[in-house]
């Protein structure tokens, strides 16, 4: 299946900074043929309504600290769209990564390879 039929939501929670990471990831996903919907800094309501209205196949969260905020957003997305895959990156300390993984979220901390992230997107959206 073709990546271009797949839509990925990219949002930032927590700190409004460290934009380079999600921008580069969005670009890599675009170059892999995905349609990437960027919403930038967003609160839980924004993320949930974008996940519904945009009918995305995957949610990518860039987490800038404040892990509780991210977890609330993840739980709301999961409650509204059960089964929708979520992956996350950003400044995520190891203990927080465990909390996220316990919720079924794949974590790509700083230093992750773009190729691995694109691979994950293809696997999670079922194009691979």
């Amino acid at each position: 299946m073709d990546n271009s039929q797949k839509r990925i939501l990219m949002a930032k929670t927590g700190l409004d900074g460290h934009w380079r990471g999600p921008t580069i990831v969005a670009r890599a996903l675009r170059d892999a043929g995905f349609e990437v919907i960027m919403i930038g800094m967003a609160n839980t309501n924004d993320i949930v309504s974008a996940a519904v209205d945009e009918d995305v196949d995957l949610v990518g969260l860039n987490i800038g600290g404040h892990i509780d905020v991210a977890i609330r957003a993840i739980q709301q997305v999961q409650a509204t769209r059960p089964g929708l895959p979520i992956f996350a990156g950003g400044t995520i300390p190891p203990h927080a990564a465990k909390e996220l993984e316990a919720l079924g979220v794949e974590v790509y901390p700083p230093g992750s390879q773009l190729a691995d992230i694109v691979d994950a997107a293809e696997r999670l959206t079922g194009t691979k």
Partner: protein
Amino acid sequence: MTDACVNTLLAQATGGDRSALARLLSLIESNPQVEAHVRVALATTESKAVVLGITGPPGAGKSTLISATLPYAVQAYQRTAVLAVDPSSPFTGGALLGDRVRMQGHGLGQNVFIRSMASRGESGGLARTTATAIQLLDACDWPLIILETLGIGQVELDVMDLATAVVVVLNPGWGDTFQANKAGLTEAGDIFVINKADKDGVQRTRVDLQDSLSLLKTAIPIEIVETIAAEKHGIEEFWHAVERYLAAASKHGMLTEIQLKRRRRLLFRLMQRDLESQLSAFTRSTVGEQYMGAVLAGTMSIEQFKAHFFATIMPSSK
């Protein structure tokens, strides 16, 4: 995807289910059979929505203007849908749809439905399936649909086919008298916005635009509004200009005319699209390849080729 599934989704969507609407919009984009089915199902549904087209060059501030306008739109129409088109890469088919970045935090909750759409290779400033998406949003009782084109230059004016009113967003220092008088953008707008009006050159741009627009014969005078959308300046004036235009269009009986014009252009576009795909299928068929070879070798005229083509796609009307 069976027709029954599509019918179920359609019933849910028109009944107010946002997820069903969102799913159908994706299916329309990616599956021509579903698109055709939805078109047939909605063919006799009365269209009621006002479609406000927003167009202009990349970076003019279209998304920011829409974002700032949403509170006024929702106050006037209760519910407002936004369809924002951004370009797909011609190389990978991928797209970065970033209009929504500017539209976050409106706090208008369920009264606003925002959908990003990739152009998927279409060159007129919209996507191939935008018309059907609008028809569906209309059928789902979104009374105002704001349609944002991708950043356009001078010829990508498909938005005129779909919009009740077209807003052209420009910036100070845009072009000069010659740009303003070139065919295209200045002929497309019903309302002009000079956004980023805190920058130098507003007066010059306004004068050039006014000069150019004064030569057009329009039933409704074209207004030029200045805004600084990022700071929410001039937005109320802009919204009033939109309301004045729509009221005048309705008074002049132009809304029906606009509706007819839209349907007419849609008819032509869909027929063109179908004929093109038939032609491309014909040229790949064994017999079509032979005929094409004959034309290329100069042993058959294009007229004869055309006769063979139509006889093939419509055997009964021969």
